């Protein structure tokens, strides 16, 4: 099994609002590291997107009532990648975003810590976006 860490960021917006925002994959292009990144639909729940690490396919989980927004990121031409579990939970009048990050085989301690820092800053950017700019 892989070592994992759950990163939690609290967002001062109602669950329904955060869930609705996350349920539309196109919104990913609005708050990520490179704002206004085009999300090119590939059919189904797949989108082609330019990420800091290069051009990737993102596949999002179908919309559900549990606040689950798992997704996969993989190279164009591949059929799937590791699932990144992401869940929203109600926290009084706000919402907690919980993301599980796995240490993939071959990733050093140092690299893993750096990935976690990237993830935290991504989630904090989402928090800021939702608390100040959305919808």
């Amino acid at each position, binding site marked *: *099994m892989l070592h*994992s860490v759950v990163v939690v960021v609290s967002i001062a917006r109602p669950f329904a609002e955060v869930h609705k925002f996350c349920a539309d994959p196109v919104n990913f292009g609005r708050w990520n590291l490179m704002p206004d990144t085009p999300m090119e639909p590939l059919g189904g729940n797949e989108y082609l997107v330019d990420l800091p690490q290069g051009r990737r396919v993102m596949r999002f989980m179908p919309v559900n009532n549990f606040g689950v927004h*798992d997704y996969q990121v993989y190279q164009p031409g591949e059929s799937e990648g590791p699932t990144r579990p992401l869940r929203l939970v*109600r926290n009084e009048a706000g919402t907690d975003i*919980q993301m*599980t990050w796995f240490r993939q085989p071959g990733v050093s301690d140092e690299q893993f810590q750096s990935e976690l820092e990237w993830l935290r800053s991504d989630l904090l950017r989402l928090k800021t976006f939702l608390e100040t700019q959305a919808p």
Partner: protein
Amino acid sequence: MILRFSPRNSSGILDHQVFLEGKASLTTPMRLIENDEGCEIIYTQLQRPGMTEEAFTEVEWVTSDFEALRSMLESRPSNGVVFGDEGYETA
């Protein structure tokens, strides 16, 4: 005490709501996720109004419950349960 569980689902959501007479119900978020050939339970401990810092960080009773669950599941032979789109089915 009445316990209400999430409907069966394929996302591994195992939330449960506790109803105690004369008190507001409490919802506890819980999720099972796949990790390679195994899986992990994610349990969210919320600091409820009136809950002391000490009570909030004291999670031994939670972890001992999960250790018991882990021992039980890991000591049983696999029973061929299949994880399908609509939940769990026994093959």
